[in-house]
């Protein structure tokens, strides 16, 4: 995946590097937006599944949703309305969809002169639209439009970003933020799922569990893409393989980690800081995903495997911060 060093392009650049604060802002903007999109998709899918179930079967599902979103455990009875409210509208919850969109916008505001006007306008529009929504009575049953709006808004923003902004260093931080967040949220979601439904690996799942596995695929936006490869026969082994190891599907772990690697290499080149800590950690993770077999992963336990992946993601994150955003000044002055 490593792109060739393009000296022709480099000669256009006035100087290496961009403002650390702005790079940090773009990175976080992208992470928050990805998180909002992921939460919107997941809550939407879970609400759809809930409609197919008997009303009292819900409690376990909601606890699972909290775990899948790493939103903290809830003991005692869970009320769907207040829970969805917490995941969507509550400003005091920093991971709620509304908070994420607001934080993404605030971060982009920091780097507004680095992004294109079109990007800013799209994100600002999305923000204003979201802020105009308030939960009403019976809202969650009619919420599909809302979640669709969030996802569509995020997709639109990505498209606008890709076609209006220079694919230079700033753009690479946006990529980085998106895929670091995606790898982390995917690992959490898939891991939680396999922990809850320890599956018979090689048999097709039964009707009762079928919906849950569809939910997993849909939660990753992967149902159609899975069917194209493996047909509609849902085998837990295949589902895991697809979501964790597919090199082509944009919401698979391996794809995300590949992108993290590519972005880190380009940033390393652009800033003349090659072969540094983030590149090494990300390279290790990539190698692990590239050479793993799904059978091994299943044998070792999908949940445990993905937890290890998550901690490596956290390591990549802090390495990026220490090298590019918040490095010690003294060392720089000495060099």
């Amino acid at each position, binding site marked *: 995946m490593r792109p060739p060093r393009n000296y022709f392009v480099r000669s256009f650049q*006035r*100087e*290496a*590097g*961009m*403002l*650390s*604060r*702005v*790079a940090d802002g773009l990175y976080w903007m992208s992470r928050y937006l990805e998180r909002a999109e992921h939460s919107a998709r997941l809550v939407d899918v879970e609400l759809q599944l809930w409609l197919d179930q008997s009303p009292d079967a819900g409690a376990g599902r909601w606890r699972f949703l909290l775990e899948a979103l790493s939103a903290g455990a809830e003991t005692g009875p869970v009320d769907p309305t207040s829970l969805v409210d917490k995941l969507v509208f509550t400003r005091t919850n920093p991971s709620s969809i509304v908070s994420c969109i607001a934080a993404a916008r*605030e971060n982009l*505001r*920091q780097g*507004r*002169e*680095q992004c294109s*006007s079109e990007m*800013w*306008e799209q994100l*600002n*529009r999305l923000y*204003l639209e979201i*802020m*105009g929504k308030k939960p009403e009575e019976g809202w969650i049953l009619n919420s599909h439009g809302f979640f669709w709006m969030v996802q569509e808004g995020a997709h639109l923003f990505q498209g606008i970003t890709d076609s209006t902004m220079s694919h230079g*260093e700033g753009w690479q931080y946006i990529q980085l933020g998106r895929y670091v967040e995606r790898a982390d949220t995917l690992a959490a979601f898939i891991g939680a799922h396999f922990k809850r439904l320890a599956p018979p690996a090689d048999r097709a799942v039964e009707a009762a569990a079928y919906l849950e596995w569809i939910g997993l695929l849909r939660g990753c936006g992967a149902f159609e893409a899975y069917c194209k490869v493996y047909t509609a026969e849902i085998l837990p082994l295949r589902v895991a393989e697809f979501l964790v190891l597919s090199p082509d599907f944009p919401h698979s772990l391996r794809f995300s980690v590949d992108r993290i690697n590519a972005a880190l290499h380009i*940033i390393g080149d*652009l*800033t*003349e*800081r090659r072969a540094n800590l983030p590149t090494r950690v990300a390279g290790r993770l990539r190698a692990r995903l590239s050479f793993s077999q799904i059978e091994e992963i299943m044998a070792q336990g999908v949940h445990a495997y993905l937890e290890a992946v998550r901690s490596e993601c956290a390591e990549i994150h802090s390495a990026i911060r220490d090298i*590019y*955003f918040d*490095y010690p*000044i003294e060392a*720089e*002055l000495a*060099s």
Partner: protein
Amino acid sequence: MPRRQRAGRRSTQGALPAAIAPVRNLVPPSFQHYRFESSYDEMFEAPGQPRAHYQALYQTLLRLPPEELRRSQQAADLSFLHEGITFTVYGNKEGTERIFPNDLVPRIIPSHEWAQIEKGLTQRITALNLFLNDIYHDGKILNDGVVPRELVCSCRHFRREMRGLDVPGGNYVTICGTDLVRLPDGCFAVLEDNLRVPSGVSYMLANRKVLKRVFPTMFQDYGVFPIDHYPQALLATLRGLVPPDAPVRNDPVTVLLTPGVGNSAYFEHTFLAQQMGIELVEGRDLLVHDNVVYMRTTAGLRRVDVIYRRVDDDFIDSLCFRRDSILGVPGLFNAYRAGNVSLANAIGTGVADDKAVYAYVPEIIKYYLDEDPILANVPTFLMTREKERSHVLQHLDQMVVKAVGESGGYGMLIGPQSTAAQREEFRTRILADPRNYIAQPTLALSSAPCFVDGEVESRHIDLRPYILFGEKVTLVPGGLTRVALRKGSLVVNSSQGGGSKDTWVLRESTNGLVGSERKSAGLHSVNRTTRPWTV
């Protein structure tokens, strides 16, 4: 977002479109509530009789259904909101971002009037730069007693730290936004020199962008000078400030220093940085080492040569000025003194826009340039002068009293609109600290047509052209016309319910005429339908 529609716009607009009966589409906006006062009217010579350069616009307004104008206005507001062309209102937690209300009826300045303004402002900024250079060096003007020494030295914005420091090219005030008003006799006069960190230029550019979409054909017919090159001119001026000893003189690293997202003009800072293609930095992005300024980039530290700073003197360096400031860069002033970095504007320019020093600007122009001022001052009473003070105190209800170091419409008493208690308060304040106040007779600012609730009404306006002082003096033709949107109000500041409108400077003084000659020559400019911009 409940505040969205209310964000600073006229209240009836939210009710559209159901509230408008179709029949109203046919009636053009009326001028029946258009008031004529003693002030100069920009559009009309006499009721019903537009001035030559306003004729085409007047005809268009008479034809245009208000519904269309209204829709354009909404579309314009929405585009301001979506693009985030907002300013921040201090001391108000909810909905702190507001759009700066914009009025769609342009203000038109014929070319000969603009030529006069341009000459006058060039003269003024040249003299003020010479003045600043003088008072921070030999102080000849003070020795000669033209400007009282104690007036300058007692100024809150006088910086002793600047004494004897040579700034590149003697360029103290690089960017200036002078407030002009038009008096009842039709002459322009200077109300205030803003020599520190004048803002508003982004609104000037944004208004133009919107108006071009709303009145495309009229633009063509009118022959309006473009203003889009402002950012480029600003960049060129800034780069001209490069310190003589900078390592790369031909390609200086230029940055715009903002106080941060909380600042009321943050939009403008991002806009200008983006348009100039320079980095927008905050204080925490910069550091000073061995009297050299660096910014923190992802590739390490990069040296900075020129800083267009939008942070006030007080906050720019906590080692030198206000200790509690976290907005600036500790050590910046030493780097500046060492000549390793240039600032625009220089430190300490506020002394020349002190409202008491302002009263001496005609003498200052005479002293350095040996010319008569082309643009007059507004009559100003200094409270330090016994006779003027007692006159003002007797006529407080007719005066505008201003604190000398304030800007943005804060710390003002507007006599005719004040209560007895307010006047009493200012009387006490003036007597306690006469140096801190000046008074001016209440001015009848000129008025211009504005689009208000489906009608055209008159509102008071001023004009802030932007002047760039580099190797040559550059003015983009036009400026920000600020509007006091409240009926009868004389305060145009954005923080006090003001708005703005596009300002057209015409290439030819005859543009805008709709005489029979133009028609017979085939120029059916006003007959062409001007389609307002709608979404």
